[in-house]
């Protein structure tokens, strides 16, 4: 069953339609990518999911129930702009935020200690937020997002500004959470991250849902039968029979075949011609490619 269901949600601001009849479902234990160009309506959508604003029409179902105030204790939200009370101490601030999510004082402290020990940042507890570096603040903010053990997490560009080590740390945690059954909505412009991490995605453009589904399935759907062949030896004239050549240099051939069958035939023909194949693979389109082509209306 889908944990979060968005059904025909519409949101208009001052005569501009920010969210235009958008529907999609986020299953349990999934990392779900929310993609789209700037101004597409992602932020408006996120604000509806986090109950900051309400849709003009349509509905949002949270674990089968209509989304309501009480669900905020089960939602964790990390906005793109890191936000903190600068002069407050880290420990105090996390306790405050956790308690606003419904945790008792004792539970809040316990959870904070757990995470600070896990991330090995215990000595930051008494520091003021403004004394931490940007990366450090982000780690702390991540903790504040998950401290109340939410069932749904929305992360808006969580890795921006993090060095590879910390980015890896956060990513591991996200994967762990997914395995525990948490639904994670991940909004980003970094397409390579989407490929690495997301299971499913939805692409929003001009307030509309233009693409959604499993990442692998989408890549398969929009594949162009692009193949990459590396070989040793000489290839005879006639490669063009099998498709459009994108690149052919230094024993490296990239060719757009008309179908998978043609690719197979190409291989057979090359082998028969005495060429030794060192590698052969299909190049699936990147999410970035698909994104651009979709937004530009080419597909």
């Amino acid at each position, binding site marked *: 069953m889908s944990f979060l269901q968005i059904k025909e949600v519409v949101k208009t601001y001052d005569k501009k339609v920010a969210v235009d009849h958008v529907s999609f479902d986020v299953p349990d234990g999934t990392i779900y990518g929310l993609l789209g160009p700037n101004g597409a309506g992602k932020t408006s959508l996120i604000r509806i999911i986090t109950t*900051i604003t309400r849709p003009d029409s349509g509905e949002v179902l949270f674990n089968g129930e209509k989304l309501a*105030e009480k669900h905020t204790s089960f939602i964790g*939200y990390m906005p793109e702009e890191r*936000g903190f009370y600068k002069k*407050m101490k880290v420990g105090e601030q996390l306790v405050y935020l956790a308690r606003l999510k419904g945790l008792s004082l004792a539970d809040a402290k316990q959870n904070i200690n757990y995470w600070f020990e896990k991330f090995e940042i215990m000595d930051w507890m008494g520091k003021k937020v403004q004394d931490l570096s940007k990366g450090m603040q982000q780690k702390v903010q991540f903790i504040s997002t998950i401290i109340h053990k939410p069932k749904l997490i929305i992360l808006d560009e969580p890795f921006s500004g993090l060095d590879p080590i910390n980015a890896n740390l956060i990513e591991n945690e996200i994967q762990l959470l997914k395995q525990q059954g948490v639904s994670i909505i991940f909004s980003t412009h970094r397409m390579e991250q989407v490929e690495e991490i997301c299971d499913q995605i939805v692409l929003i453009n001009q307030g509309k849902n233009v693409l959604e589904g499993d990442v692998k399935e989408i890549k398969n759907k929009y594949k162009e039968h692009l193949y990459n062949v590396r070989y040793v030896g000489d290839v005879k004239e006639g490669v063009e029979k099998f498709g459009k050549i994108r690149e052919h240099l230094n024993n490296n051939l990239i060719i757009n075949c008309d179908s998978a069958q043609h690719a197979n035939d190409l291989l057979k023909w090359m082998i028969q011609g005495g060429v030794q194949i060192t590698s052969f693979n299909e190049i699936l389109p990147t999410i970035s490619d698909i994104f651009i082509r979709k937004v530009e209306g080419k597909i």
Partner: protein
Amino acid sequence: MDKLWLIIKREYLTRVKSKSFLLSTILTPLAFLIFFVIIGFIIGYESKENQKVVIVDKANLLNKVMKDDKNIYYSFSDKNLDELKKEVESGNYNGVLVIPGLDSLLSKKAKAYYYAKTQLGLDAQSNLENELGDKISEYKMEKLGLDKKMLESIKTEVSLDPEPISASQKDESSSTAAVGAGLGTVMGIIMYMSVFIYGTMVMRSVMEEKMSRIVEVMISSVKPFQLMLGKILGVGAVGLTQLLIWMILIPLISITVTAFFGINPHEMQAHSAMAAQSIDPDDAKVMITRMLTEVWSLNWWLILPSFLFYFICGYILYSSLFAAVGSAIGDDLGESQSLTLPITIPVIIGFYIMFAAVRAPQSSLAVWGSLIPLFSPIVMPSRLVFDVPVWQIALSMFILLATTFFFVWLAGRIYRVGILLYGKKASYKELKKWMFYKD
């Protein structure tokens, strides 16, 4: 409700535990008291230097008698002026006072001449003039054949004693008006300052949250209205705390200062009163005592709770407006002035109405000023020491309470939109639109 309480607690504790709170709470009364001590010293300061003045009284108006004034010693001489001037130069005397004869016994003015290297100070000069004036009056009385005693009985000092019409009315004394005006002004000033100090504290906090983006995280957990109200109440509690501390600290410090430095604040006040109006020192002391009794006799059971009510409501009313405006201000701090000005104008008008109200507490300006909700928190407290009809107080409180609820609700509607909008040029037209946005 728990969330509201959590927010109030945080807003309160973070401010009360901060260094700036401790400093301002302790330093402000101290600064005031040090100010008064210094003024007291300056006013009470007397030059200890002795001065010898020789008087040339050709017409013998003074009859060879002149009272020595503090450290000025007078003596008479028949020598001529040039000789005496030389004696001043050689240091035998500090100055020569020449009193020419009167043109006529009926002339109202007289001139005397003081020859010296350094002139007398202001106090000494005025004392001398008064003393000379008295002595010349005596001379005239004698010469005109008038009886001094009879003349003195002509002067009559009138004091107006207010009397009630019915038995239930309070019997006021003649100092009530003065005391009332003083106390009223103090209360009005406290209200005025609280609105500005704590109201702008709320506004700055709203702006900080908006600019640091913490507000987005906050309102994914709490409703915007809860956040705004929590902030208003938390800051209000800080204000009340500070006020309470001052009400305890100021008397304590006065007592300590009195004990340590041996300065009697009553004497100090008497001194300043004297210097300001040349009142007789004994009269001044009597006045102060009368004023204090007057203060004690006031109906504090009514005044204090009412003052508290106006303080709380007035603060909440104005700070909700400040919160709404703060939510509209983006990074451009220049905008803040044009937006906060319309809020400060009623406060200032109220302040001026208060000044008029303490001088004419039953005038229609005063009455209307105590009923209109934007002015009443400042005007009504200043009238409480005078006999304000209970129905007026009740009506004023009711109107203020209703208006406060309304304004808080209105501010909430503006706040919830403003905190999420960035980059939009804030103006009152915009704010009006936000009131009607659907949730």
